[in-house]
């Protein structure tokens, strides 16, 4: 196991150096790839005429089924597609990632995280619309969608078939890497850290046994994805939304207990965002860490959740675009902000050892300041979030494997075994190499995906703005009132 872990740590160092090639901006290192994602968010926000904000109510109405036609009843609903995508997205990035952002970027990182979430809504809208538009329906009635398909077919429609195919293959390879990194190792790493944390830390009965927890996770994941015990996946899928509500309520409770600290916390967030107070590297440091952790958490521009969104049954691909824009909103603007506020109001980030413990342990400490047994609630949430995120990403990785190897069963089985091995390694490796490897793979997805999005920008705009115009003109009507 040790040799594996050391080998992984070396590989992680190398990949990180390549992906996060940084240029110095005002004394801080600015990773170009983060800029790449933010610029895309900004571009699509303007290009789609601020539909991320203007289309918000429409998105809510779509989720509530107000535009669902009678022939679509009984198919995958907008709500179901969104819920499935969100349960893959809301993971440890929302708890651990945010804690990391605040220890490095100070409270000001929160502000930039929210901005990144709002911009991400536009990118997510663009990619998920394409996911539906270019999905493939198989003979057995099942559907496959996602960046591999829109990069292949959407680019072909523009006469860029060759480039599209190259991007799709590159994307699929990175998707497999990302599913093993951020969607897997990072999750098991932080879940294991939290379990050890609540059972008494390094001196507790589980201290030093992170590898065993990793193996336990690997077995559980293996039972579902290799053993085909779907009932575990079904239960997880149903419990996770409640854990999400429980987590957000717990954060609100912690914030409520610290009401007097709220004004100064908000002050610190704004001051940090514009003056760089409390951030390593000042304003730019706060901005970069905020953007980086938000992008990792909501996955906008990476194309990952377009796979989940494309399952919806609709004649209008734009509808799922609008609905998908709610995903970064829920993930970043709501859940990440809750974590951030919790850490800032309790002052947990000011602890001198904050940088050292980092991640989920810091969030846990913030919870602990209110009620001593709260970390246990957090642990349950963490383990469930981690598990559901692992299952979702194993599905994404499987889809990428299927795309690359033409639905070969051998390839899929090899992938599943490798996935479980990485679950185990993830728990045993140190946090930093894990987080770096996760980030590298995840951000590489954005490289291929966003090139495709730019190429198909006209198609995206026609669909998104066209649908909105037809709503405004009354050509597309609400259907919920017709039958009453």
């Amino acid at each position: 196991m040790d040799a594996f872990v050391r080998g992984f740590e070396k590989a992680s160092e190398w990949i990180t150096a390549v992906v996060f090639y940084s240029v110095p901006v005002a004394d801080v290192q600015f990773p170009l790839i983060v800029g790449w994602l933010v610029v895309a968010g900004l571009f699509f926000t303007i290009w789609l005429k601020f539909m991320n904000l203007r289309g918000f109510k429409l998105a809510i109405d779509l989720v509530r089924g107000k535009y669902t036609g009678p022939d679509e009843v009984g198919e995958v609903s907008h709500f179901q597609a969104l819920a499935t995508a969100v349960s893959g997205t809301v993971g440890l990035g929302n708890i651990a990632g945010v804690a990391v952002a605040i220890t490095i970027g100070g409270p000001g990182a929160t502000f930039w995280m929210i901005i990144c979430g709002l911009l991400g809504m536009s990118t997510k809208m663009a990619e998920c619309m394409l996911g539906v538009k270019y999905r493939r329906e198989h003979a057995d009635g099942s559907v496959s969608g996602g960046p591999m398909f829109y990069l292949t077919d959407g680019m072909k429609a523009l006469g860029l078939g060759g480039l599209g195919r190259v991007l799709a293959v590159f994307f699929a390879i990175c998707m497999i890497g990302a599913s093993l990194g951020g969607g897997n190792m990072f999750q098991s790493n932080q879940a294991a850290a939290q379990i050890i944390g609540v059972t008494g830390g390094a001196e507790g009965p589980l201290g030093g046994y992170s590898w065993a927890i990793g193996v336990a996770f690997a077995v559980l994941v293996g039972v579902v994805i290799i053993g085909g015990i779907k009932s575990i996946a079904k239960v997880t899928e149903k419990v996770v939304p409640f854990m999400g509500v429980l987590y957000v309520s717990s954060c609100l409770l912690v914030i409520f207990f610290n009401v007097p600290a709220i004004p100064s916390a908000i002050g610190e967030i704004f001051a940090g965002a514009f003056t760089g107070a409390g951030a390593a590297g000042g304003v730019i440091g706060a901005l970069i860490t905020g953007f980086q952790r938000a992008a990792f958490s909501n996955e906008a521009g990476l194309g990952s959740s377009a796979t989940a969104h494309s399952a919806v049954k609709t004649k209008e691909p734009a509808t799922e675009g609008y609905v998908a824009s709610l995903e970064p909103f829920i993930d970043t603007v709501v859940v990440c902000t809750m974590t951030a506020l919790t850490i800032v109001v309790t002052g947990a980030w000011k602890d001198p050892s904050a940088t050292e413990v980092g991640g989920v342990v810091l969030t846990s400490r913030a919870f602990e300041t209110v009620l001593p047994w709260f970390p246990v609630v957090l642990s349950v949430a963490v383990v469930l979030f981690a598990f559901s995120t692992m299952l979702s990403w194993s599905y994404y990785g499987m889809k990428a494997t299927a795309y690359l190897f033409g639905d070969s069963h051998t390839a899929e089985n090899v992938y599943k075994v490798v996935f479980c091995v990485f679950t185990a390694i993830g728990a045993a490796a140190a946090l930093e190499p894990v987080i770096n490897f996760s980030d590298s793979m995840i951000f590489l997805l954005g490289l291929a995906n966003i090139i495709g999005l730019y190429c198909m920008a006209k198609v995206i705009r026609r669909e998104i703005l066209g649908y909105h115009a037809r709503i405004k003109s009354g050509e597309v009507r609400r259907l919920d009132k017709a039958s009453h």
Partner: protein
Amino acid sequence: MATVVIGVDDSPASRRAVEFAIERYKVESFALVLVHIINWSPFSFNTPEENEHRHARREAELEAAFEQVITPMKLLAEGAGMAPTIVVRHGNPADGLIGVSREQQADHIIVGRAGERGLREHVFGSVASRLVQHAPVPVTVVP
């Protein structure tokens, strides 16, 4: 001529509801609409695999509904000289029946009573009692 909607599933109570309608038909003829609502909610949580195969599953559910629920009831009604209109769709059973009644401009709804008791009644409620509370037309509940 009046229009009567009968909500059916594969229970003996549904059969009794159809038989009750047949008795009434002998007294006064009416247009019959046989409705089966497949219990389904757009607000449930599914795994990606479930979503991927949902379309095929929906087709299978519709087919099963026609074969196992509608066909026996239809034969029963046809045997009594009625020519029922058939509606099968997904949704909440009570709301679905109310929706069909509105679309068909029904004058009357007939359902059988499953007779859930105790915990099940509290947890799942009952299609019949919900209908009685919310239907726009008179409802007959056949025990």
